[in-house]
């Protein structure tokens, strides 16, 4: 994929040679390395025991797909891509949260589709680790989306404790003067 940003040791960087490509659905195209297939194909491969198939493939979930379906083999999936059909469709944030916190996915979690600069920090909070920025957008510009406002009160994948638990500790150190 082009136009990809990845978190390298937690720091966002443009990835020059991202190996992954989305399976375009043509026969035979899902063979070989570094292919991300649909949930349907992935399940078929898993059941059919395609040699070496399912274990190397990434999976792309549509917003209606249930991430629980990947549960059984989650440790073997190198990358899961979640789709944003529109940046205003927030289902993938919940899918990402579930994959990380409930199903224990440790691989690369990639946002694809209508992925824009101003939502990148939200995605990072929900557990995304790479971001295929919409192709008409400048990826260097999008990188700036990681600067600035990144505080949340609630817990998130990136900050598993809500602020009120961290606040208590902070209150014992230098933040003590903050609250009357």
């Amino acid at each position, binding site marked *: 994929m082009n136009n990809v940003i990845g978190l390298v040791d937690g720091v966002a960087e443009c990835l020059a040679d991202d190996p992954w490509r989305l399976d375009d659905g043509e026969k035979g195209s899902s063979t070989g390395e570094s292919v991300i297939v649909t949930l349907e194909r992935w399940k078929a491969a898993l059941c059919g025991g395609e040699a070496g198939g399912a274990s190397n493939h990434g999976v792309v979930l549509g917003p209606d797909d249930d991430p629980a379906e990947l549960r059984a083999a989650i440790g073997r999936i190198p990358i899961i891509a979640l789709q944003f059909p529109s*940046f*205003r*469709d*927030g*289902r993938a*944030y*919940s*899918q990402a*949260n579930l994959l990380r916190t*409930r199903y224990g996915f440790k691989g690369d979690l990639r946002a694809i589709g209508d992925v*824009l600069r*101003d939502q990148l*920090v*939200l*995605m990072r*909070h*929900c557990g995304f680790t790479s971001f295929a920025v919409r192709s008409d957008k400048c990826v260097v*510009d999008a990188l700036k989306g990681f600067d*600035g*406002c*990144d*505080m*949340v*009160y*609630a*817990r*998130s994948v990136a900050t*598993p*404790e*809500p*602020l*009120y*638990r961290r*606040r*208590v500790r*902070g209150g014992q150190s230098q*933040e003590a*003067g*903050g*609250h*009357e």
Partner: protein
Amino acid sequence: MYNYDSYDRALVQARVHQFRDQVSRRLNGRLSEEEFLPLRLQNGVYLQRHAYMLRVAIPYGTLSSDQLRTLAFIADQYDRGYGHFTTRQNIQFNWIELEQVPDILQLLADNDMHAIQTSGNCVRNITTEAFSGVAADELIDPRPLAEIMRQWSTVNPEFLFLPRKFKIAISSSESDRAAVRSHDIGLYLYPGKSGEMLLRVMVGGGLGRTPILNETVREALPWQHLLTYVEAILRVYNRYGRRDNKYKARIKILVRSLGVDAFSEEVEREWEQIRDGAAELTKEEYFRVAQDFSAPHYENVDPVDLDFGAWLARDSGFSTWVRNNTQPHKVPGYVSVVLSTKPGASAPPGDVTGDQMRAVAELADKYGFGEVRVAHEQNLVFPDVRKRDLYALWIALQNHHLATPNIGLLTDVIACPGGDYCSLANTRSLPVARDIQQRFENLDFLHDLGPLSLNISGCMNACGHHHIGNIGILGVSKNGEEFFQITIGGAQGKDSALGRVIGPAFKVDEVPEAIDRLLQVYLRYREADEPFVDVVRRLGVGPFKEEVYRKSGVDQEVAQ
């Protein structure tokens, strides 16, 4: 009230910085309007008919006098000298330049305020009743949990792009004054057997074009689980709520289509997975927030004040105002005072000028503890006033046209800004409000009618909450002409009900006559002090309908 600490301040400051950048990218064309739209909505900026509107959050309707002065400054400096208090306890400025919004947000942030999530498909301002913490019939102060939810929902990354807007209200008084049943989530806070805080969780309420009262999905939820339970509800909604049709996208439609039992099961299943983790609320956090809401230093005053009693006897105008515009307080010798923003035809409901705001701030400092509340009926409230100060306060409020003794009466009209401002509205609600206030300005008549709520919405989106008005008026457009449909029997509070349509809609100039006829039927049939809505409940719509549509030269138009 809640005092921001360094974290809260850092967040609102960072947010201003972020939005300033987004506005400048919009202005230089690097951000398209489509991409900018949700960003500005989540910062309170709405594009109206003539200009941008900025909606500022007033969390659970609580303001300090200094914050009100800041709002007055914004009204004068950036708007046309007034602001409009809304039915969700916020304030709107109707004539704003986009270029100036970052500066306004900076002013707000410097005064511990913000406009975050006052619009858009996200969790909106958490509301409660205007008398929380002081009402005589309150069980538990709901404000600490309201503030805890405000923080939790602010910039919560998972839930900023929900299928549709999401409104949460919490109440804890015998008579629910926060309209909790018409919210996406309504919370009722009450003490358990040993005094522990419990919550009834009601989901799926909403007005708009499909008015529905919410239904109980969980009884007796211990308070520590509030955030995880709300999280479970929102996750279920975020995943399964409809996104194909904005009119079917509210959670009420999901609850309806699944059925409340299946929906509850889904929520419980989700909640079981997250209930006992880091997101469980702690006592430390509750007390940290609650201490900011501890009672001010009330004076030990004699509940019987001779001067006050003498003024009541001497001045009937004063005693009428006291009877109508004050609420019992839990501390003897104190009351809460409601400032009417509905003086009649001279100003639209909820509109308050910058000068008035400054005067209110000063009076709040002088006669209260520097605190002002916004009621969802669009009026302002001084929560703590000594009875012996009431006479002086009444005189002062009269000078600022804020002492109309009509709280809870027919002319205490709740109305949205309507087609005069709003680009969604297809009719103008303000002229209707004005005509009604003009026709029924006789105070003796109003007081004789007794408690009667009248709500007007300029379109189906129902921002004027017309469904839960005892008399509701809904503007509908037919072939470009405005018509107004009337419902009766709606109510908020413990006996919440949705009003029923009486028949074909009216032209704007026929509305006051139709209202008059409804009132005549009521006066004819009421027994003793029976309120309007009880007569409607007892008799049904029939007799009202008959009288209103009795042949009289009123042109009937069939417009639904």
